[in-house]
């Protein structure tokens, strides 16, 4: 018995070792560009690309971070991004939840047709309508205004989130709702006191994904924001790269500053990410 078990164990250990080696190799490919970005952000005054490249800077310095943070209105851009992302996320979640409540818990004429229309339009990428949307925003006088971003972001993400929340709301028990109705509660009370609290995990998922989407949005902001004082971070980084094209260390420092809130949210709220990504997938 013992004789035959030993080589078996050894091959199992070897197999595990190989698996972990592969996993680490994969992780290296995933992380390496980020390491390289961090490494270069800590190299000050590298105007030409070093050759051969150095992963560990010989004289690491936080100078780039200080310069990025204090120059070119960077703090203003950070604030703009925060205002835009928070405001549009709040209204996206509110309006999506309201729509999802109507679709999930009520029967009304036109319900199926309306829902199908929303789904069909959802298939059309936002960029398809970017030209007429640009004209519309211009007509409304919202070019170079953070509201021009906020309104379009709300419209752009409400459909998808309605779809996701509807699925969740449908599964909530009906008995509680009926008991509340008998006690004389109105539908608004039911929505606020029952539906929303019971859906906290789904709402958290939707909130996180909306926030990140709005925080990172580039194309629409590029299209309607020309005023340097109204830039959001993605646009700021893009134009930063244009201005300081050879100072990559500075550009990378700016990118890392923009990435920090995203990383914090991702690591702190990771369980919502997994549930959010798999929600639409595993159950079909």
């Amino acid at each position, binding site marked *: 018995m013992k004789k035959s078990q030993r080589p078996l164990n050894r091959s199992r250990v070897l197999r*595990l070792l190989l698996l*972990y080696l*592969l*996993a680490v190799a*994969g992780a290296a490919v*995933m*992380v390496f560009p*980020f390491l390289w*970005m961090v490494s270069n952000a800590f190299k000050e005054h590298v105007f030409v*690309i070093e*050759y051969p490249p150095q992963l560990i800077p010989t004289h690491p310095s936080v100078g780039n971070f200080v310069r990025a943070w204090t120059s070119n209105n960077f703090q203003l851009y950070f604030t703009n991004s925060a205002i835009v992302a928070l405001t549009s996320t709040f209204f996206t979640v*509110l309006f*999506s939840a*309201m*729509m999802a*409540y*109507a679709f999930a818990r*009520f029967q*009304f004429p036109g*319900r199926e047709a309306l829902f199908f229309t929303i789904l069909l*339009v959802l*298939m*059309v*990428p936002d*960029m*398809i*309508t*970017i*030209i*007429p949307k*640009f*004209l*519309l925003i211009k007509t409304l006088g919202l070019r170079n205004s953070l509201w021009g971003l906020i*309104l*379009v972001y709300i*419209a*752009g993400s409400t459909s998808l989130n309605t779809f996701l929340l509807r699925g969740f709301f449908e599964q909530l028990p009906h008995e509680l709702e009926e008991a509340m109705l008998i006690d004389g509660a109105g*539908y608004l009370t039911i*929505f606020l006191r029952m539906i929303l609290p019971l859906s906290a995990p789904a709402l958290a998922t939707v909130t996180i994904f909306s926030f*990140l989407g709005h*925080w*990172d949005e*580039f194309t629409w902001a590029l299209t309607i924001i020309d005023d340097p004082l109204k830039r959001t971070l993605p646009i700021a*980084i*893009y134009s930063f790269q244009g201005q300081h094209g050879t100072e*990559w260390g500075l550009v990378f420092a700016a*990118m890392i500053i923009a*990435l920090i809130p*995203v*990383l914090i949210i*991702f*690591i702190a709220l990771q369980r919502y*990410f*997994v549930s959010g*990504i*798999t929600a*639409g*997938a*595993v159950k*079909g």
Partner: protein
Amino acid sequence: MALSLKMRKRLVPYLFLVPGLLFFLIFQIYPLAKGLQMSFYRWSIMPGKASLFIGLANYLRAFEDPVVGRAFLNTLIYTLVTVPGQMILAMLAALLLHSLPRGRAFFRTVYYLPVITSWVIVSLLIRYLFQSPNGLINYFLVEVFHVISQPIMWYEQARTAFIPILVLGIWKGIGWSMVIYLAALQGIPKELMEVAAIDGASGWQRFWRITLPLLSPTVVFTLVMLLIGGFNVFISVYLITGGGPRQQTEVLLSYTYRQAFDFLDFGYGAALSMLMAVFLITASYLQMRFLRKPVEVYG
């Protein structure tokens, strides 16, 4: 009282729909209709100067425009390369992580990093890595792995300029499909695998005969989402090559965007957008019909 409750129940859903629907109508439906209208005009952007109705001229122009053909081909290449690339690597990564007794969550986080990083950041990063002649990729290929003797001038030729875009498309997306596959793998009953193993099925056979069929709805779902994503490629092209050299790496959205916001040809841009919308809606409609069956079997 009963009647008023009934009336209320009838009215209430519309009240809940109003704000969301207003946004939907103003910023989604109206622009679609407006875009369709614009596509039939030589659209004037000067205030006071009337736009000229030109019928289908914008559409006919699109079919004769060689750059449109190039952009369509590039979009197709991007989709055909990055979608299977992401799916296969994501499946391998998911199987790998699934077989790890410990540290699965850690590796999942690491593999997901490129997914949560914005397209702007990773595009600029990739552009930097592929710089010529002294970028890091060239350094690895020439000095470390000795695959080539001369650094490649990536962005100077159409053939090589598209490679960083493809690499980014695959690298950034692996984590997303992987997380989905991993969750689906965890849903497969362990007993099934054990029974198959006792019956003498090899790992390879178990994958093809059990794992993959059980995962097929999930795989189809990722396929559909990635195909739609593939046709949406824009930011990476805009930031990495800008469509160059000589518009050779232009994709449909980048060319449309350029027509509208660089050349200010809004009518032509709108026509190109409409062509893409028709293509995408037809494709997703067909996929929805094709999709329905496996999903029902699974759920």
